[in-house]
């Protein structure tokens, strides 16, 4: 692989790191600098594309929205829907969402490929990341299909995706974060929970039908309560 080919690849996939590219980067400081620039750009591109403005996500969707409802004037239906939506929005708006939860969602949004992993990783690989970043050991087996050491709030933290019977669940082990109590949240189509542990916080995030609290308890046990 030459410099032109390496840069084409890095420009197309800034996080790519196959054997050929790794070999080239090991002996080419200019291309390493190029990769760093592209990864910096990529982080900002993800920050631009990821957030969802509240105004675009407000109305709920249902296939029944378009079905005719005999006997109910359309203006009355619209007014009812508007009232319910307004009340729901007001109630929901009053519920504070922890800043930590927002940061976790923003981070996960920046790694959309994590959700599509399907191959269960070797336990040793998962344990290494958990130990080096959070100092915790895996006390029980889990089907981890994605495991990375990610920069988060100025530190490296384990970012895992665990396969469950109900779909994939993201787990971030946040050693230096503290929450006073278990905090459930729902942001941008994700629901999750921040679970306080004796030595940090476990963040669990899902986007399907899994109960994040139940999964968080299981993860906590698998991590030995982060003791």
């Amino acid at each position, binding site marked *: *692989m030459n410099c*032109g*080919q390496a*840069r*084409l*690849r890095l*420009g*197309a*996939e*800034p996080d790519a790191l196959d054997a050929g590219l790794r070999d080239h980067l090991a002996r080419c400081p200019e291309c390493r600098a*190029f990769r760093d*620039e*592209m990864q*910096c*750009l*990529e982080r*900002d*591109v*993800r*920050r*631009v*594309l*990821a*957030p*969802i*403005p*509240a*105004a*675009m*996500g407000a109305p*709920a*969707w*249902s*296939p*029944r929205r*378009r*079905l005719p409802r005999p006997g109910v004037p359309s203006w009355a239906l619209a007014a009812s829907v508007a009232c319910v939506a307004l009340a729901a929005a007001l109630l929901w708006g009053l519920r504070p969402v922890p800043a930590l939860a*927002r940061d976790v969602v*923003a981070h996960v949004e920046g790694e*959309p*490929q*994590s*959700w*599509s992993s*399907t191959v269960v990783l070797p336990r040793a690989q998962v344990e290494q990341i958990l130990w080096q970043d959070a100092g915790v050991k895996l006390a029980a087996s889990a089907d981890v299909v994605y495991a990375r050491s990610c920069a988060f709030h100025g530190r490296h933290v384990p970012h895992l995706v665990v*396969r469950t019977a*109900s*779909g*994939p669940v993201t787990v971030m082990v946040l050693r230096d974060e503290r929450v006073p109590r278990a905090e459930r949240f729902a942001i*941008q*189509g*994700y*629901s999750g929970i921040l679970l306080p542990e004796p030595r940090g916080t476990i963040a669990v995030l899902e*986007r*399907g*039908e899994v109960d994040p609290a139940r999964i968080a308890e299981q993860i906590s046990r698998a991590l030995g309560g982060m003791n």
Partner: protein
Amino acid sequence: MRNTPPELPVCLPGEPEAPQSVRAAERLFGRLRPQLLRFAFWLCRDRALAEDVVQEALLRAWRARDSLKDPAASRGWLLTIVRREHARLYERKRLETIDLERAIDEESAELAGGGAAEELGELRTAILKLPDEYRIPLTLQVMGGFSTAEIAAELQLSQAAVLTRLFRARNRLRVLYGLAPAPEEDPAP
């Protein structure tokens, strides 16, 4: 492996079905709708149009929900349907030309409303100004998490062409950072 998105509706709303699965599908679609809207916006650069695209895409998906075999792949499945609905919209009718500068100004405040990206206005504008041939693969990759092979299949391009388009997209954005554009190289054989 992604589920194959539907080309045509395979069943109609109102068919007998277990209420629990209907409710589960409604919840799933409702939860993913904000992400689909955002994705559609970056495809068509117009909020009202994006809402139409997503509404049509969700109705199409609803009719074909039985073809979704793997719930874990639902997001990719729905994003693909949105992308195809967007392409269909352009095939069905010649859309009015929009004033891009005005559209960007109008949407800018709302896009920045996400909170995290307030200081990234120039980059946001630069992405909006990318031609479709660069912006759509970039959106599929970054927002959708599609691999270059999946983008190639979806856009009916060679994988080398997708790599080149993604490279050129980011190369244009590099200029914003005061970085010299990298010289272009033909894809490796």
